[in-house]
């Protein structure tokens, strides 16, 4: 015996529809959590990452003992959290003797672990350590520029993987329209060695240049850190194939109020709003426009006189 359960409130229904799989996807939400032990640097890294991604991230403050992303059974908690919070990227920090200041960046497909990459953090500089003119501080939730420099990102497979994961992590929502005044942040990632990536977050200063394109200037606002590649796990081929599948046809938006008529062709109705005759302005008898009114009246008189003369001559 099965029972059909539907949400009783509109809000619940809307939440469920938001979480349903869509044809065209927008941003992914990030889940930030940590394991049994964290160091000072690691906890500040996680906190600052959360601040950078404020709109689309959820941070768990309690420690999680049974999460071991690289082991076969240690992913169940992560999958459960992903299901509950509807997050598809997770950042898991842990600090052990063998792997100090460890950060595991992972992605989910259908709330199952898709791929993982483990990095160690070195030379971390918090955003409080940077001093800059607060006018240029980037706003929360603005779409960032992402820059990758270095041949390592193309030649080394782990760095290639990291590049993909960092793009996914930092890009935020996928939008159609962008407001050019809202561009104020950039992430700069440089492959300084085949195993190390230098990551920093900068604010943008748009300076006047000769053309429409402003001259860009980057100011480091922090945080900045070195990421050392440790382990990674690529997705298996079938899963990757399925996840990379995109639907070619875009859902056609229904155009309203357009009809095709055989005789008239393309028709549409113009709906006029109700004329509030009581509130309509009749004459602008304000004293300030008195001169204009007089001149207009004179002009009109002249025109009628000239017209009459024309007609009489004909």
């Amino acid at each position, binding site marked *: *015996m*099965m*029972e*059909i*359960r539907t949400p009783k409130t509109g809000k619940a229904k809307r939440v*469920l529809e938001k*979480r*349903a*799989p869509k*044809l065209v*996807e927008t941003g992914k939400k990030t889940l930030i959590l940590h394991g049994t032990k964290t160091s000072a640097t690691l906890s500040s890294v996680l906190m600052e990452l959360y601040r950078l991604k404020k709109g689309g991230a959820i941070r768990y403050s309690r420690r999680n003992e049974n999460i071991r992303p690289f082991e076969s059974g240690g992913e169940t908690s992560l999958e459960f959290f992903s299901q509950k919070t509807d997050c*598809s990227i997770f950042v898991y920090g842990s600090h052990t003797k063998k792997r100090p200041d460890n950060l595991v960046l992972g992605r989910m*497909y*259908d709330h199952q672990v*898709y*791929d993982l990459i483990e990095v160690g953090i070195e*030379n971390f500089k918090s955003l409080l350590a940077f001093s800059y003119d607060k006018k240029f501080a980037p706003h929360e939730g603005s*779409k960032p*520029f*992402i*820059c*990758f*420099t*270095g*041949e390592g*990102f*193309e030649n080394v497979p782990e760095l290639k993987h990291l590049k*993909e994961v960092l*793009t996914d992590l930092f*890009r935020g929502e*996928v*939008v*159609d*329209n*962008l*407001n*050019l*005044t809202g*561009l104020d942040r*950039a992430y*700069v990632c*440089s*492959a*300084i060695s085949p195993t190390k990536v*230098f990551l*920093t977050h*900068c604010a943008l200063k748009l300076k006047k240049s000769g053309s*429409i*394109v*402003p001259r860009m200037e*980057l100011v480091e606002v922090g945080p*900045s850190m070195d990421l050392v590649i440790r382990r990674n796990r690529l*997705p298996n081929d079938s899963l*990757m194939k*399925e*996840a*990379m*599948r*995109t*639907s070619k046809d875009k859902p056609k938006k229904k155009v309203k109020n357009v009809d095709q008529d055989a005789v008239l062709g393309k028709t549409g109705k113009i709906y006029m709003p109700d004329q509030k005759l009581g509130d309509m302005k009749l004459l602008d008898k304000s004293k300030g426009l008195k001169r204009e009114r007089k001149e207009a009246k004179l002009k009109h008189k002249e025109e009628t006189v000239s017209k009459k003369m024309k007609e009489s001559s004909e």
Partner: protein
Amino acid sequence: METDMETEQIYQVDVGNLLAFNPNHRFPSAPSSREELVKECIREGTKLVQAIANTLFNFPSTETNDGPIVQLPPPTTKLPREKHIPRPKPPTKWEEFALKKGIQKRKKDKLVYDEQTDQFKRRHGYDRVNDDNDVPIIEAKATDEPGVDPFAKRLDDKKKRVGKQEKNRLQNLKAAEKAGALPSHVQLAATSLPISGTKAQPKKIGKDELGDVAGLAATSTASGGKFDKKLPGEKPPKKQGKHHKYLPVVAGRGDVNAEKEQTNNVLSKIFSKHSHEILNVGKAINMYNVKKEKKKSGRSDKSGRSDKLKPKKDITKKSANKAK
């Protein structure tokens, strides 16, 4: 400037993601100092950002109150999806039938002309056309049975139709779930008892039941639950046992005569002339007969059993059998 233009062409720019990649820069393997390295990285970053901005600011922009808005092209870097592509819903039983028969969907109007009242009434809702509850007279047909209430029969038929529709809807949803295309706001949940041997679903206890059980547990303690620690929000237990209200007898506590009257009424009823009418003779006889029969059947059953299994009768307790 020319060298700049050359290197620009080799940058991989994805404007949809505001992403740029320079695959040709080589960092020195022995960096001079940390600061130099940082400066170099930022310099390279600036070049990349400038490259993206060059393309971005040359897009046609529309002016709004907040600033120039530009239409971004779709991103070119392929990133994995978050969830699977929504699967197509399998056609329902009716849809299959309609397809087979070639039945087209027809749009129904909200207002329908009602012949009886000569006006337009709505199709569904308050004061609707052809409302089942409004018919005053149902003419009897030759096939009708004499004892059947046609109005009740109509209600019954409607209930059956609604039940059938719900069953069909459930079947359609089950088929959709099998195909992985259940609508996002619907959940199917199992509600029946499981087959024996499997883990039984815990029965849900209501608030009142919990309160009763807690009360029982409290009174079974030595002090009758009076000194038990109460959880925040727990209500004091309801008065246990029989609830008797005794009227006051002492002059200071209230109306003394009310109690006197009560007892006098009871006495007068017993001593009155028609006191035999209080007793329901028929009922008394029935009770006596039933008891007798029980005793007879009980004795015939018990003959085979040994004394040790019989509950020991307490001789100090007086028997309640006085109506013999």
